[in-house]
């Protein structure tokens, strides 16, 4: 399994999101390394197809696939949680579901 964590430093919660990812991976018994990529320029955002911070990909798949029209940019990302609220962070459940769907 390949896990990638992309972030933009100006968005303050990336460390919390990374910790949440590592915790869920540990709970699921997934020992894969997490590739952490700091996205620093708009050009890099385009080349990495980065829609916002934080972005977590499992085997290249975003844990919360964006609409095709979502622009690539250095920005903070909005996740819609299970209860409908908006959060700057993906939920543990969102992370877990993607990990479980790929870990077959």
């Amino acid at each position, binding site marked *: 399994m390949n896990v990638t964590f992309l972030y933009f430093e*100006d968005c*303050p*919660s990336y460390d919390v999101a990374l910790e949440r990812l590592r915790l869920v991976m540990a709970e699921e018994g997934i020992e894969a390394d997490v590739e952490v990529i700091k996205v620093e320029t708009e050009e890099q955002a385009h080349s990495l197809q980065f829609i916002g911070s934080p972005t977590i990909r499992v085997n290249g798949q975003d844990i919360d696939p964006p609409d095709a029209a979502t622009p690539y940019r250095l*920005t903070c990302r909005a996740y819609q949680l299970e209860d409908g609220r908006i*959060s*700057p962070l993906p939920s543990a459940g969102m992370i877990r579901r993607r990990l479980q769907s790929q870990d077959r």
Partner: protein
Amino acid sequence: MAKLKIGDKAIPFALPGVDGEEHSLGDYADNEAVVVFFSCNHCPYVMAWEDRMVQVQADYADKNVQLIAISANDAQKYPADSFAKMKERAQAKGFNFPYLYDETQEVARYYGSERTPEFFVFDKKGVLRYHGAMDDNYDNPQAVTRQYLRDALDAVLAAQTPGVAETPPVGCTIKWK
């Protein structure tokens, strides 16, 4: 950090609101406290907190407290932050406070605001008494342990000094032109 420091006087402004009216800081000179906060549409931190913003205004309206939201983001790069979209957001979320557009970004620069949301609480004399975040948990309203904004308002309304005068604002950076 803000160019405004605790103890400084509020900087006047006059900005267009989504209600079609121009709003000046002086319009609120008779309020017991005024909360100027820099906000926007697209930022997920704002979106996580905005129901709580509406609730604070509702809870403190009868105490003559006025919240005023200002968006200064570059709408060319962030179309979701356009004035038209601001009107839509205010209507959709039932904003019970003015939502103003700082198109030139001058007010945001004068205040020294860097993030959205970022709160400035002024007492009835227009003196800055609290600056920073709304509370200590953007992610989960049920897990908030420190109500910085509410505590500051309670102190200001009681003519007391807020126990916590300043916290680092948490949110997206203001999108400068």
